[in-house]
């Protein structure tokens, strides 16, 4: 008994300090989470942080989520997401985008804000962490480190460019979390900041090459300058046509590299959009996908594809039967224009590979359940014999459909891997042509005509071409806007173009009437205005 007591006493005395320490220790051990303090220790970690904004850009720059693309295209004169029977009302958000009646509480507007600023935050976070660390400690040479930060600063400028496009007057933030409530800067000041950032970093950034597939580069920097100067009159109040032409020339002359050899136009008009378009010569900056190797696939089928679309394409990818071409746009394409047949989908639909023998049957309990799927160039309740055509009167087959980018059939070795082009050389040709015409008082010069014809000619056979080639007389500003629409349909630039041509709020199309001039900018989302009192609402919108 005595011995037992002794043992008990000594044991408890020995245990006491151990207990006292571990008894109140509440530190967390993170088993499956990375702590930021412990990151950026080697090259792979750095690269993984540099590339984070790109996978995020997929969310806002391509169709499929409410980002820059949806606000830019669904408020324009080419595309809309009409209600189709029981589908697609979606709280009226697509209807309000189309009619230009969005509110300061609009979820599409808020979502775009959040997506873009989050992407910008990824840039800021990586820039801050990489710039604040010694190159050697990250396993990088100084040149590599500068290359990464240069690229990230260009990419950040790209985010600012698109934010400025949508919202106009925005804060300028370069450090995560500081200041907590940044103030709105006028659009001209944002313009200057972007211009300076691009110019300061364009030469630090690497030339475009295959190794930079899907990433910002020196070439991307020039494309950004071209966009910035093309819209400078609107954005900064001062026209910059010569600067714009110079930026275009840097790309047309391929001074900043190319993805597949020198930057050059694709000869075939489907090459830029096919499943293996990483072989395109004209893409300057894209969001890269590879479903086969990496399971990273485009998100846009959700917006464009019908519920049974996969059968047309020989794959299982269907969509929400959302975005369609506005009635009347289809007929602006000439029948001889190959883009009409290659990029748009109309009429009875057949299963992939059946050569028009095996119809695609609509299923899912909608208007044409059990019948062949036939896309039509109108938006009205044909099943009920109605002729009323507006945003609420669609059916499951209403509207001509998107067929520009191709996923390919299941058997395609590049299935679901087509990259989404943000900048392509054809667009630079048009930018330069427009700058020349505007510099020339809105009248085409032969140089401008040649630039546009170079692109347009790809869409016509040799026999058809002479009848459709532009001359300095036929390439009016209105015709340029129409041709921009045909060449760049679905690519996201329509709102910017309409604003530049003064048509965005004054024009009418289908069931859309002219809107208030302040609608050229989207409102600052009300939730953010309420949180950050240093933000200023855009003119015309309530606080």
């Amino acid at each position, binding site marked *: 008994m005595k011995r037992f007591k002794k043992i008990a006493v000594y044991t408890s005395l020995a245990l006491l300090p151990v207990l006292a320490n571990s008894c109140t220790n509440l530190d967390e051990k993170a*088993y499956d989470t990375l702590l930021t303090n412990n990151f950026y220790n080697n090259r792979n970690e750095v690269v993984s942080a540099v590339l984070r904004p790109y996978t995020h850009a997929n969310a806002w720059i391509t169709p499929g989520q409410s980002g820059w693309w949806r606000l830019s295209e669904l408020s324009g004169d080419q595309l809309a997401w009409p209600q189709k029977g029981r589908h697609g009302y979606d709280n009226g958000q697509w209807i309000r985008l189309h009619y230009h009646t969005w509110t300061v509480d609009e979820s599409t507007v808020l979502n775009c804000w959040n997506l873009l600023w*989050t992407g910008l935050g990824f840039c800021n976070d990586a820039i801050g962490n990489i710039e604040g660390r010694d190159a050697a400690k990250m396993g990088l040479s100084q040149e590599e480190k500068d290359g990464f930060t240069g690229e990230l600063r260009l990419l950040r400028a790209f985010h600012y460019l698109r934010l400025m496009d949508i919202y106009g007057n925005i804060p300028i933030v370069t450090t995560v979390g500081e200041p907590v409530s940044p103030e709105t800067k006028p659009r001209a000041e944002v313009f200057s900041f972007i211009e300076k950032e691009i110019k300061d970093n364009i030469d630090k950034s690497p030339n475009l090459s295959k190794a930079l597939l899907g990433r910002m580069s020196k070439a991307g920097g020039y494309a950004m300058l071209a966009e910035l100067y093309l819209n400078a009159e609107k954005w900064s109040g001062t026209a910059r046509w010569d600067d714009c032409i110079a930026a275009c020339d840097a790309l047309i002359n391929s001074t900043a590299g190319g993805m597949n050899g020198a930057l050059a136009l694709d000869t075939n008009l489907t090459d830029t959009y096919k499943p293996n378009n990483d072989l395109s010569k004209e893409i300057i900056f894209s969001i890269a996908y590879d479903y086969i190797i990496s399971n990273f696939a485009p998100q846009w089928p959700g917006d464009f594809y019908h519920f*049974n679309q996969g059968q047309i394409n020989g794959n299982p990818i269907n969509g929400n039967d959302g975005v369609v071409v506005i009635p009347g746009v289809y007929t602006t394409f000439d029948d001889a224009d190959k883009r009409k047949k290659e990029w748009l989908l109309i009429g009875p639909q057949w299963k992939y590979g059946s050569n028009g023998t095996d119809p695609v049957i609509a299923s899912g309990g909608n208007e044409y359940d059990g019948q062949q799927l036939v896309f039509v160039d109108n938006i009205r309740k044909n099943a009920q014999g109605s002729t009323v055509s507006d945003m609420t009167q669609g059916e499951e087959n209403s509207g001509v459909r998107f067929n520009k980018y191709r996923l390919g059939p299941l058997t395609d070795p590049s299935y679901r891997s087509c990259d989404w082009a943000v900048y392509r050389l054809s667009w630079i040709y048009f930018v330069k042509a427009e700058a020349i015409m505007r510099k020339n008082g809105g009248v085409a010069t032969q140089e401008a005509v040649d630039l546009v014809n170079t692109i347009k000619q790809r869409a016509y056979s040799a026999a058809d071409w002479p009848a459709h080639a532009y001359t300095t007389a036929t390439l009016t500003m209105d015709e340029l806007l129409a041709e921009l629409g045909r060449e760049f349909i679905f690519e996201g630039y329509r709102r910017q173009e309409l604003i530049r041509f003064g048509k965005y709020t004054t024009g009418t199309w289908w069931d859309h009437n002219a809107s208030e001039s302040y609608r050229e900018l989207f409102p600052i989302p009300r939730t953010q205005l309420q949180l950050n009192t240093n933000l200023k609402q855009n003119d015309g919108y309530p606080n």
Partner: protein
Amino acid sequence: MYMKRRLVFLSRICLHSIWMLFLSMLAFSQSRTITGKVVDASGQSPLPGVTVQVKGATIGTQTKVDGSYTLNIPGGSVSLVFTFVGYKTTEIAVGTSNTVNVTLTADVTALKDVVVVGYGTQKKQEVTSAITSIEPSDFRQSGARNALDLVQGKVAGLQITRTGGSNPNTSPAIQLRGVTSLTGSMSPLIVIDGIPGGNLDLLQQDDIASISVLKDGSAAAIYGTQANGGVIIVTTKKGVKGPARVTYNNYFRKEYKSRIPKFLTADEYAAKIASGEINATDKGYRTDFVDLLVNHDNLTQNHNLAFSGGGEQSNYRASVYYLNQEGILKANERQQYGGRLSITSKGLNDRLTSQFNLATNFNKANLLTDGGNLQGYYTFNPTYSPYNPDGSWYFEQTSTNELARINQQTDIRQQQTTSGDAKVSLDIVKGLKGSIFGSVTRDSWTEGGYADLLSELSVENYDSTGYAFQASFLNIKYAVEPTLEYNITVNKNHNFTAIGGYSYRYEVEQYFDANNYGFVNDIFQENNLGAGNMLLTGKAGMSSYKNDNKLIAFFGRVNYNYKDKYMASVILRHEGSSRFGANNKWGNFPALSVGWNMRDEPFMQGVTFLDDLKLRAGYGVTGNSGISNYSSLVTMGTGGNYINPDGVWRQTYGPNKNPNPNLKWEKKSEYNVGVDFSFFKGRITGAVDVYKRITKDLLENVTTQLPPFVTNSIYANVGQVSSKGVELTLSGIPVRTKDFSWTVDVAFSNSKNTLDRYSNELYTIKYQSYADIGGYGALGNAIRTYEGDRIGNFYGKRFAGLTDSGDWLFYKADGTKAPADQLDSEKDFAVIGNAVPKVYLSFTNTFKYKNFDLRAFFRGKFGYNILNTMEMFYGSKASLPSNVLETAFTKNGKITGGYQYSDYYIEKGNFMKLDELTLGYTVPFKSKKTFQSMRLYATASNLFIITKYTGNDPDYVRDTGLKPGVDALNASDDRTPYMGTRGFMVGLNVGF
């Protein structure tokens, strides 16, 4: 002084010994044998285990199972004292007869005597907080799918809602006294035999001795940071001293469809195609699709066999069970078996007590069906067939052939849960007891499933190459809690009981899953995942996680009792959790409560009808640590693969949240005032409680400034919710005769739960919206709560009639009518109802006639609304040509507009249902040699419901949490639709 007291003590012991020696000598010389039987006054049933003692002596015995006893008593005038827990102690002078039969009456003033409170028990009389204790005889008897089903509707203020209906694989939603959190855990802490965070799978209804609900903060504060949702303490049955006893219980249950929504039958649908009202193809079949999913042969059976017994030093109870539950839907089953063992033993001259419990549950669940498959089949064109003409399954891209799915896919989960705990207590010196409690609960499962090559899933998504997956999960919880208890009486009448302790709890959880496709045949199923082709191409999936958390606390409680008249209790818990920000890991949780037993006051002496009257008042602070692990750390999250300069696609990383080093506890402070009463010799008993609780610093993902932050939300302490209410528990015995008795039990509660605030000095939220309606047309959230609003406010458009063409019109703020797209959700929408019942009411009528007993249990909810999305989605022509409810052509026949959420679809949810009707018969055995007791019973559950609500059974519509009130077939926002059922069961309880 000390020496003197000690001498007195010693001399007292000597005296006692001598006296007892003397008595026993007497007994030896003149003893005689008394026999008799002890029965219960109300039912005349024998009472086993009653202590029979000679007054003033140590001679005593206990009654046997048939209530009989035999005792040798000394000569002379002797009195026998009969004592039994829950009964009045009865003293009888022994006359000349050698037979002394006694009838014991229940001690209503003791009110079931002992109540389990946190870290101990208390005499009911001493309790100063709002605690409700439910015994097995009061349990619901319709065959529990979860232990808490047993007390549904039995505890005023405790809401238990089966949103998954009778699906055996779902747990009920549990909420006590309203919502106490926005994003953290809202469920009460479950404590099973001292194991905090106990696993309900380990509880079988036949093993439960009592369920004690600590409702207010003054009772729950001893559990500190996990007690915001209240505490439910479950005590399992233990062995008692006496001969070995065997009990066997079983039941068999069959379920039938009830309250099936009235979609058009195939014939009606075909007729409408013929008449042109539906524009669809009549394929010529007449199929009742939903009926194809019903398991008409369902049978649920439960068997439980328990052995118990014990001696002077130790006792034991062991039980095994088998429970096989078949849902009303095919491929929806749960089969479980397991056991529970408990041993108590004493040593060191009864100074050392040890208690060991071991419980385990093995279950196998078929998870393929959960009711989510009903919608597709209800709405399917009933002139179609699930088969093609050649007998193969009919598939189409946009729907799922549910019958094919349950034939061509599998999804089985096999789970094992085990808990073991031990408590060793030592009486150190008189009044001082030291204990150490330790427990471990291990919960693990593996789940696997396979879709055949030719299944729809495989054909449409996996290139007809099958799809297989496996997942595994492991959660282990440890607890170590040493305590010291001290009991002292000062100056005779001042009794102090104190307990102090330390609690260390650690929980670790890990998970793994993998999936693959690209199989050549269906042989392997999910048993050879690596055989699929997709590992090579990167399409095979794999994921895992692991995280842990720690809770450390120091706690203490002092109870004071003066003559059983005035009582007070003080609690303090100091607790820390690893989950919180570096600046706020620790919190303090104090409580104070007082009680006053008025019956013994002089001024109450004349009030003869009063048996007992006690006033209680308490205040307590509790917390909530039920948030995600690692919530306050600065972390990097994966962003998906992207192409690297070397052409290889690698994972990207970026910040995935805005860190908040100031993250701190949600804290609830609660006031509770109550009265316990008993009148007319126990004919009327009950309790009334009034409470007000305020929960502050609620955690919510608040929108933050973006820019400059990376994401637009931060997890921060911003909100405040409060609730106040009245709870009434009442039991009455209107009739009580020798052969017949009628008892009524009522539980009533009324509460108001408001969201007071969403803001703190940094962040402001104007409102939050909840309850995603889901389904077609993306109608958004049904509920919007502004600061100061009641929780559960429906917020939407106000119906103003239809246009001539049948399109919707709604009221604008200025009273004019307008179509939907001209309404501004900020200005023109309004509060159009509330989804949280104001009143919960249940009452039980129990009739006993001789050996028969009949019980009818009614349960209802009142003063609230439900959004009838059944009408909204399926009672609308907008849904055509999918099948629709009959009302699409009748009640809603004029509507041609698309889906719109408005008060047109808001209905009153009020209902009262006959939840349980049980008829039982207790077999009166003359001889108890083989059988000691036997009861047969038959129960019908959900026999009928009285309600004006036109959708599904309103009882299954969620009424707890922040997103209540949406009735639906779709599974949006965690809803768990299921088929309504009515159950019939028979059962048997036998004791050997």
